[in-house]
């Protein structure tokens, strides 16, 4: 492998080596460098969130609360949620992979607003530092959902600081959304029409829509929390004349669509990887593309399915249940299309594809268990139990993180110009898949038996499933840690990747790896559909 010009011309100019020094990174406007800078922060947040998760699982190994105090336990699950939701799941694919590949995919030199892109990163980092300092100086115990009146009237932890951190971080998300949307509209290479776009671009477009429309709502909601907690404005607390259910409406109006910020981009990655390693175009391209938009739009109409037992009217519950069932259909359509893409493919079993197989398995379970919760008659029993915990972890970790890992493994050679050990990466995918199922499948059973979420102490008869879950988490942790080793090894000793190690279509594979600072030597011209493998003679170095 890697026998092309790279060995002959070692001093080749790339985005990584054309400038040196810490300032060349901190002041860069290069989307590729910014993507890697997001990778660093997101990885740190993932590590932090993982440590908190370990603290939760270790405590739950025994029914009694014998490891942490109740207050510490409550902080652990809160900080796990805050770190993972706002600093990993939401930015992972758009800000890391999206930043790196979007302009490459479009044949552009950069995003539309490179300076704004750098500002987004700084805003993100400032939000992260504020949130982490809230964690370091005492922590926060409200749950990542910040339900009132607990958050405004009862909690004596660092609610304000955490709120400010989340508020600030939101602006990074909005700015990235605007930037991507304008980039997709304005920066496409000649010939790259909308229906020739890679499906990841469609997914990022749909995600940007949600980021732009949804994030301001959560920012306003957090601001209202601060006004009530800090200045005694009566908005949510009934003792001040407010309404606690109003908070839930506002919070979920963003936070349900936020689930799609987390899952749509990984879905886009899956389309890229599955097309490449099946050597075929994605089955039903336009259905997959439009299902992303449908999910983004209809995702805004189903927030109250988080509130079926929160005192909303039964008729309103009925309507939201109906809409929730309806939004399940585009996700199902995507899954069927991916499956059909494999048909008569030439399926190359490389590591990124293993993550795709893992994604399909876990996303299937995550998506289908959503039907249990959409069923309002069943949700009354399941709401706020471990069934819900298991369900959303299957979507967000099993789905989103698996898709993120598929993307990292797919684009790693492009980002670094180096290959990693394929076998080691497959072991990681298998460990994650097994560990994940072992961790979260037992939680469905616990949930149906009635184990409420956020419980520090639980009845003894549920210990067996909790022990299984903790054991699974250890395997899962190992699966997530393994890439650190083989990626580091790849950076030091990996073989050169060449321009296109996977033989993939797409403009991002038609430039050197790592790419030039300006991405392409000239302006690329597109004259074919996305994933047009049939006409192509594939050469894998």
């Amino acid at each position, binding site marked *: 492998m890697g026998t092309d010009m790279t060995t002959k011309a070692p001093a080749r100019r790339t985005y990584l080596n054309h400038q040196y020094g810490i300032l060349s990174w901190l002041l860069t406007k290069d989307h590729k460098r910014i993507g890697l800078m997001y990778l660093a922060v997101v990885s740190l947040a993932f590590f932090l969130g993982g440590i908190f998760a370990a603290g939760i699982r270790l405590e739950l190994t025994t029914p009694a609360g014998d490891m942490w105090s109740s207050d510490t336990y*409550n902080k652990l699950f809160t900080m796990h949620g805050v770190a993972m939701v706002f600093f990993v799941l939401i930015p992972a694919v758009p800000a890391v992979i999206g930043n790196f590949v979007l302009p490459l995919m479009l044949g552009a030199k950069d995003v539309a607003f490179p300076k704004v892109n750098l500002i987004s990163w700084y805003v993100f980092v400032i939000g992260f530092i504020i949130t982490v300092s809230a964690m370091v100086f005492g922590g926060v*115990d409200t749950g990542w959902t910040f*339900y*009132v*009146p*607990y958050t405004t009237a*009862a*909690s004596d932890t660092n609610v304000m600081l955490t709120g400010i951190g989340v508020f600030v971080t939101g602006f990074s998300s909005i700015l990235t959304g605007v930037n991507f949307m304008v980039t997709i509209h304005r920066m496409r290479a000649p010939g790259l029409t909308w229906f020739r776009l890679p499906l990841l671009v469609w997914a990022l477009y749909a995600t940007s829509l949600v980021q732009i429309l949804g994030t301001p709502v959560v920012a306003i909601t957090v601001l209202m929390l601060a006004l009530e907690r800090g200045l005694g404005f009566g908005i949510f607390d*009934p003792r001040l004349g407010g309404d*606690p*259910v109003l908070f839930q409406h506002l919070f979920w109006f963003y936070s349900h669509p936020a689930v799609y910020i987390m899952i749509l981009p990984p879905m886009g990655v899956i389309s890229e990887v599955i097309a490449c390693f*099946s*050597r*075929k175009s994605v*089955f*039903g391209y336009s*259905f997959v593309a439009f299902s992303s938009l449908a999910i983004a739009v209809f995702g805004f109409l189903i927030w109250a399915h988080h509130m079926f*037992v929160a005192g909303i009217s039964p008729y309103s519950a*009925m309507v939201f*249940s*109906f809409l929730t*069932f309806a939004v399940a*259909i585009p996700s*199902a*359509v995507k899954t*069927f299309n991916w*499956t*059909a893409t*494999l*048909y*008569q493919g*030439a*399926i*190359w079993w490389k590591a990124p594809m293993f993550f795709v*197989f893992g994604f*399909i398995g876990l996303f*299937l379970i995550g998506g*289908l268990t959503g*039907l*249990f919760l959409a*069923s309002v*008659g*069943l949700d*009354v*029993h399941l*709401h*706020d139990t471990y069934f819900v915990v298991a369900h959303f972890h299957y979507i967000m970790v099993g789905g989103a993180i698996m898709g993120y890992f598929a993307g990292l493994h797919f684009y790693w050679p492009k980002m670094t110009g180096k290959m990693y050990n394929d076998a080691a990466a497959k072991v990681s995918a298998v460990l994650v898949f097994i560990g994940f199922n072992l961790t979260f499948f037992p939680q469905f059973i616990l949930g*149906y*038996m*009635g184990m*409420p*979420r*956020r*419980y*520090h102490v639980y009845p003894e*008869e*549920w210990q067996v499933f909790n022990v299984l879950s903790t054991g699974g988490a250890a395997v899962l942790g190992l699966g997530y840690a393994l890439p650190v080793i083989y990626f580091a090894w790849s950076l030091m000793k990996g073989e050169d990747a060449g321009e296109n190690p*996977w033989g993939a279509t797409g403009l991002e594979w038609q430039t050197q790896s790592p790419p030039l600072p300006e991405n392409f030597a000239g302006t690329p011209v597109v004259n074919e559909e996305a994933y047009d*493998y*049939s006409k192509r003679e594939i050469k894998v170095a």
Partner: protein
Amino acid sequence: MVSGIPFFPAQASTMASQVDNLYFLILGVTAFFAVLVSVIVAIFAIKYRDDSGQKVGANIHGSIPLELGWSLIPFIIAMGIFAYSTSVFFQLVRPPAETLEIYSTGKRWMWRFQHIDGKAEINELHVPKGRPVRVTFTSEDVLHDLFIPAFRVKADAIPGRYSSLWFEATQTGEYHLFCAEYCGTKHSGMIGKVIVMEPNDYQAWLSGDTGMPMAQRGQQLFEQLSCVTCHLPDGKGRGPALAGVYNSKVDIVGGRDVVADDSYLRESILTPQMKMVAGYQPLMPTFQGLVNEEGVMSLIEYIKSLKAAPGAAPAAQAEAPAAVTTTAAERR
């Protein structure tokens, strides 16, 4: 309760088996699709494996009939599940006409249950088997949630308003009762048990060292708080007469009407200006802080016990003068 490792919660109410049937139906449908797709993916992945990386796949772009098929068929199935689950839901939230009423308040970190006869208990709820029970509850501080897995019922306890749930127990025994909405330090300690008894045993339990019946306690409060000075029984007082008002339709200022249920009565005691009965001046002061949630529940129970005298028109039907100046900040 259960020996060995339990896999499934006890079915101890009339609704439990209905909810479980729904659960198994959805489980069957979803397991079918999960297995179907997984098996197809596995077959394709193995059958079309080509590790040379040099070959290309077939030139297939899609199929409109297939797209329509796998959109419409899941949609129809989803609608079937939706209809079934919604019908179960309406049974879950609509109690039968005749229920045994129990009141409850949640506060950090305990549940207090108040039986009408006066008996009160903490973190334990005694109920008779074979009789529909409705629990009306609220929270005195933050959100809580009353959850009884063996009955498959759950509802948030929300400060400032009433929630209720109902069940009819079918098996004697002791069952878990949890707070399912995170409420701070000892959230996982806000638990208790429901004790389902044979009706005779329940009666015997009720009659042992009982407190004052709720309606009687409510009457005491009604006098202590001077409610009685305005709410005269003959309807000629400054406030409407209350006999027969419970669950009747009341015309309020602004030309609307409301049903005088528990929530309305509670609101009218604590924030009387919210929905004023038409035809009366906004004279009633708020009783917030003067009477606690349990006191309010006793007052409501007292009002419920006042039956309309035959022939006497309920005060609420009084004609609404057109020019009542309203200070009512109506909730929309």
